[in-house]
């Protein structure tokens, strides 16, 4: 059963991956972390906002799509919200399968779709006091398009 969590609290990637190991041959995990700079400027924090209800639904739909497109035994998305300082974990996408290809591809799919299709918004607060809302980059849309054009 795919699991989806949206919460302010931090998560434990090791414990989550261990939970996916039972009965699997392959477990793949991706952890996204707040970087210390953006566009060459030093970041004080990232603030993540979501749309309660809609966001959880969108992530569940995404996890469901991954379970259908690849032979997965399990699938997990954890996404944090609120104020996150550099070095903090933002997101975990993890999948379990019998064979490695399914887990690796499905994890990349989840991360690419999270960038463009999950109802989250990010504000970058820089140490110089300036703040800016992040717009999705062209590269993110290109990464997502990979999965639309070519089925597994």
């Amino acid at each position, binding site marked *: 059963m795919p699991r989806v969590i949206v919460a302010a609290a931090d998560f434990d990637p090791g414990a989550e991956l261990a939970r996916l190991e039972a009965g699997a041959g392959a477990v793949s995990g991706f952890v*996204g972390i707040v970087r210390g700079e953006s566009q060459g400027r030093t970041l004080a924090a990232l603030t993540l*906002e979501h*749309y309660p*209800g*809609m966001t959880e*639904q969108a992530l569940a739909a995404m996890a469901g799509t991954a379970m259908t497109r690849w032979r997965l035994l399990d699938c997990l998305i954890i*996404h944090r919200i609120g104020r996150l300082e550099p070095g903090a974990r*933002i*997101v975990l996408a993890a999948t379990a399968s019998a064979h490695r290809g399914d887990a690796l591809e499905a994890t990349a799919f989840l*991360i690419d779709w*999270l*960038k*463009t*299709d*999950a*109802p*989250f*918004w*990010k*504000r970058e607060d820089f140490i110089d006091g300036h703040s800016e*809302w*992040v*717009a*999705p980059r062209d590269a*993110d849309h290109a990464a997502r398009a990979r999965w639309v054009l070519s089925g597994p």
Partner: protein
Amino acid sequence: MKILYFAWLRERIGYAEDTIDPPASVTTVAALAEFLAGLSPAHARAFADRGMIKAALDQQFVPPETPLGNAREVAFFPPFTGG
């Protein structure tokens, strides 16, 4: 009808939520955005860059020409950036 604002829309308007009863002439999401832009100078600022604003009807992502129908919750927000 409940209207929700996210990210820089919410910041520009100064709060997260309006409850309004739009006139009968407002039948689509685009027309609703137009109507909301006229509510206050803050709303006008928030809705100025209309091309950058996306919408959801009852938590379903929809294009601007979508009829409002019996929607109870309409949300306006910039493009998503998760992950």
